[in-house]
């Protein structure tokens, strides 16, 4: 396999890992005010992702920086084309990242409400906009012969891009619900279970629409490919399992659903990187946008060493904090009312999902 193909695959994997991991963070961010009513419950909900969200977000930077290093042309065209969308993504990432750290640091209802809103809105906005951006890679944007974007912000809001964005939001919601169900107990867990069902149905409708639309956009066969089929099946499994006590399997299914959905975009894209709606001759491809052989060789060695290493220590971090998060007993409670954790079937921790 040629080096630029290896790097295309690696970048696709980085995006998949990012959205599978940060996907449940987004879901928890969007859902935490719904599944948790009291301040304590909200803290429980947020602490399910507390030790991990920062490490999960790293994969976005890894994906972006890898595009810069391996396909400078792709990075340059995509990031300048998505300019205002990425400004919004950055504002949301900033507000959200700071919210996690700052929220509990002052005892004031208004302070907390402000950061709660930041978390919720940002967790919605980021997957929506990134979904639009990823959809546009395949759906096509006006790009000229020197690989420069010639449109404006509204050219980004294509039908296919929007549908991809909304689908990704729905998948993150479902993923967040299965994650919360896996990571909490009692009331919060029950509310997550109740939410997972309707979210599952919505996600099924959206993913089927996404696959049909992708078939039209990508050209080729009308029959969905194996990965697209897997996305639909995984969403169906996640929706079905969400109401059972198979917390681990439900979470696994929603993780597979996101991975297959994002993976299918990149599979349909290859060997292109961005489609030009102006002229097919102006498409960006792995061969016309890649770095030189030497640079790619160096980066391959770096990736071979560090990708598994990061996976190992992140996997260990998932393992360390695998236990369900539970509120401390209220001051008046007898300390001995520890209810046993609900029975779980299947993988009980997301540890294996760090790739």
């Amino acid at each position, binding site marked *: 396999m040629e080096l630029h193909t290896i790097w295309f695959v690696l970048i696709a994997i980085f995006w998949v890992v990012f959205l599978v991991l940060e996907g449940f963070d987004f879901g928890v961010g969007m859902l935490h005010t719904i599944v948790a009513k009291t301040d304590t419950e909200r803290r429980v909900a947020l*602490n399910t992702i507390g030790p991990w*969200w920062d490490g999960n977000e790293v994969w976005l930077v*890894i994906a972006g*920086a890898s595009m810069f290093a391996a396909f400078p042309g792709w990075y340059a065209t995509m990031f300048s084309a998505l300019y205002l969308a990425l400004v919004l993504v950055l504002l949301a990432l900033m507000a959200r990242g*700071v919210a996690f750290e700052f929220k509990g640091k002052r005892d004031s209802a208004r302070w907390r409400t402000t950061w709660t809103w930041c978390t919720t809105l940002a967790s919605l906005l980021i997957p929506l906009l990134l979904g639009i951006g990823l959809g546009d890679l395949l759906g096509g944007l006006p790009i000229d012969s020197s690989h420069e974007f010639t449109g404006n912000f509204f050219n980004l809001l294509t039908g296919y891009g929007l549908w991809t964005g909304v689908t990704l939001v729905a998948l993150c919601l479902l993923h967040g619900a299965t994650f919360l169900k896996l990571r909490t107990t009692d009331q919060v867990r029950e509310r997550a279970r109740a939410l997972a069902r309707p979210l599952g149905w919505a996600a099924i409708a959206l993913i089927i629409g996404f696959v049909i639309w992708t078939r039209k956009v990508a050209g080729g066969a009308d029959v969905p490919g194996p990965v697209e089929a897997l996305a639909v099946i995984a969403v169906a499994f996640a929706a079905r399992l969400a109401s059972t006590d198979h917390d681990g399997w439900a979470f696994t299914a929603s993780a597979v659903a996101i991975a297959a959905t994002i993976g299918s975009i990149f599979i349909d894209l290859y060997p292109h990187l961005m489609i030009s709606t102006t002229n097919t001759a102006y498409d960006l491809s792995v061969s016309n946008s890649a*770095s030189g052989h030497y*640079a790619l060789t*160096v980066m391959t060695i770096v990736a071979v060493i560090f990708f598994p290493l990061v996976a190992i220590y992140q996997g260990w971090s998932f393992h360390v904090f695998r*236990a369900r998060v539970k509120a401390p007993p209220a001051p008046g409670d007898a300390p001995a009312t520890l209810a046993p954790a609900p029975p779980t079937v299947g993988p009980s921790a997301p540890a294996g999902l760090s790739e």
Partner: protein
Amino acid sequence: MTNELARWQFATTSIYHFLFVPVTIGLAFLVALLQTAWHRNGEPEYKRLTKFFGTLLLINVAVGVVTGLVQEFEFGMNWSAYARFVGDVFGGPLAMESLAAFALESTFLGLWIFGWGRLPKRVHLACIWLVAFGSMLSALFILAANSWMQHPVGYVLNSHGQPELNNVWALFTNPTFLWGYVHVLLASLVTGSLVMLAVSAWHLRKGREVQAFHHTAQLALLVLLPAILVQMFVGNKLGEIEATYQPVKIAAAEAQWENCQPCSFSAFQVGGGKNDQTPTQLIAIPHLLSVLATGTFNGPVEGLNQLQKEDERKYGPGNYIPNVFIQYWSMRVMAYLGSLIALFALFGGWLIHKGTLDRSKWFLRLSLWAVVTPFVMNTAGWLLTENGRQPWIVQGLMKTINANSPSVTSTDIWISLVAFVAIYIALGAADLALMLRYGRKELEGDGDDSESGAAGSGATTIPALTY
């Protein structure tokens, strides 16, 4: 106009980002030292101090990390022509940074925050060291990338006239990088220790927890003193190296328009800009510039007018002289404040020797104000480095004027610039408020978290239920 705006945005966002970076690097190292001390001596006081300064560290990391995301995206968003042109060389160190350093720092930070009482003590200690190491490693890759813009090495021009990496080792042995990286690390230690010293001094003045904060005041000084003294030497050496590879940068920093030999150092002057090339030098020290720039008593320094002519011959017509006012004063602000801090640190060292550090009213009061200086010095240092490279974005290879994104309009950049400035002001206010609040808090009791739910079985209660 678009180019100007993109430059304003990059300057604003990177200067702001670098207010937080050195605090993170310096404080992470100091917190790791505190926790190591606790690990060794078992004194609960050190554990409380570790947690206290750990909280200050986290408040800073939050803003440092999110503003770093902007930097990472900005090359593609605002500088797509640059990214397309240099990505082959410049993208590598950034990708290495994300995989090798940023991931390490972020993952182990999460483990450290939530790992109190859940991880074995030794492993938990290793986590904070990995955070400190990761943040220093991050700076290494970023500085390697930046140094390549100052002094491009390890590349060949391909058939399209674009630089292509052909020797990655050269990026990391670039003399500009080696000295620049040490310079940044020492600046971070100076910044972190001055923050720790200021907080400790505030408590000592109030007479609260005197014993505990006496420890941290001493620790801060023990890091500060060698760091600032070595820094003066390293900064000087970096100046010599820049004088070799970027003579315009140093000549501009001295507002030296004509050739000279031997050269006197202008310590304070009025005028000296492009239209006023014979400034009134209020204080001039004979031979000092020769010594600083060349390391010899009578060394020659080329003037800007001669350098301009040489550059015109090499690169064609154009203005190759950066803004001299910024160069001259950022250099002096950095060097003068650095000297003051060195004296201040020596004063502190002498007080430690006398054993009166915790009672010296003057020193403690000065410490509260000294904490402002590293932020001014760090900003001045980057202004000197980056402004001094202009008009180039990559010295000798690409001009800044050609580097911005052709597809991004000035309206786009206005929107983003206003949005970033607004959110940065809000984040800065929140950060400052929290730093002041938590810096003045009393040390928390020695919360016994050693046995609450060892990793594993059943449900664990949440740590630090702050609300």
